[in-house]
């Protein structure tokens, strides 16, 4: 159901981009275009980048960030960085260093260690 809406929205956006009387803008070529390894400016890439950014912004909000803050944070990410985390914010590493959790982990591991000592009496 969710993927249906995603496809629908992306196709709709592509139509919007193509359907409008969209003349090429006169004006400055951006520095990002100068360093781009490929000049692939296809509409589909633009839509994909837009969707990825919207997705990341939504995920930030889902994780406790307010709307404006989420927008500001996504805006400071590069396209590549957005690609790297879109859809994965639940699982990618997040630096935290939680002192308390370490103790619980230790207890479990010590238990396993004791069991292993039982089966392999001499640690090599």
């Amino acid at each position, binding site marked *: 159901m969710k993927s249906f809406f995603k496809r629908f929205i992306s196709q709709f956006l592509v139509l919007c981009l193509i359907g409008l009387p969209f003349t*090429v*803008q006169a004006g400055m*070529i951006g520095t990002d275009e100068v360093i781009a390894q490929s*000049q692939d400016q296809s509409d589909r890439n633009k839509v994909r980048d837009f969707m990825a950014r919207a997705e990341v912004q939504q995920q930030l909000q889902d994780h406790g960030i307010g709307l404006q803050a989420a927008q500001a944070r996504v805006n400071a990410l590069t396209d590549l960085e957005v690609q790297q985390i879109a859809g994965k914010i639940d699982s990618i590493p997040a630096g935290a260093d939680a002192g308390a959790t370490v*103790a619980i982990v230790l207890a479990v591991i010590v238990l396993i260690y004791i069991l292993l000592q039982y089966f392999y009496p001499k640690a090599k």
Partner: protein
Amino acid sequence: MCGTKTRVFAGFSFMSARLLAGFSFAGARCVEGLFILSVLLSSGCAGLAPQTDTLKQQIPADLPSFAEVRPVPFFPQEEYHCGPAALAMALNASGVPVTPTALVDQVYLPGRQGSLQVEMLAAARRNGRVAYLLEPDLTAVLREVADGTPVIAFENLGILFYPIWHYSVVVGYDLPRDQIIRHSGKHERAPGPIPLFEFFWKKEGRWAMVAMPPERVPATATEQRYAEAVVALEKAGQARNARIAYESMLKRWPTNLAAYMGAGNTSYALGDIEVAESWFRRAAKNHPDSVPALNNLAQTLLERGKLDEARATAERAVGLGGPLLARARATLDEINKQQASVKNR
């Protein structure tokens, strides 16, 4: 000798030692460090810290044997806030007087109780610094420190399948003593064995970043990647800082097109159209076959009312063809329109 069983026992042994050290993180790390070190020394487990091994066998002649960055202000981290703390330390060292509390809204993610690596880069940009990801190489980290730049390193202090992710700030090293010095957690200038640092650092791909003041270029920066980093700063809306960074790039890479174009584009964005014109002229002089240089020069000349020269420049741009032809044509059309309307007055 460094088989899986040995490693497993080494791991379990030191984790139990951590327990014995009374759940104290610092105490546990000390004991843990001794265990890993003893394993490394006794069985020569090169696999656990390969880059340290290589470094020790052949220290580069141009790498100082000892270095320390001073001052790097220390902020003890609050629980889960090693991201804001580490970033605050690096930013302060680069000249931005920001506190960890101010960075929490930029980099801390409550739902994950931590900070994402890409957001550390983005937040550095928002504070006007060039965020540059280093090569995944221990020597690169040491070189940056030797150059006077503290390095934010991402570590995994956990074991086996239980990760404990953490940011620390590398502020010094001492090769003869085999020590690396970090601001970490509540510990200021804490020394630790280099192989131990590498062991925790390599688990997540050896991620390390620097937050550069725009006047300086990282010692280990490469041309394309640094250009990308400065463009990212520009796109984050930091035109003034980005312009300085582009100018700094030209000191190291005097013919870099992106640096000229960036200096021009940021000047334009800041409203310094005269300065923008001179940058685009220099770009076109160094890169006469660059459509972006000619196009942007033409556009600038148009806005300054120098229509004849604008048209000639735009025609050159169009003549070069290429993937940006449509843009160059649009600029030329605009110039022709302006010239026609001037004639008709």
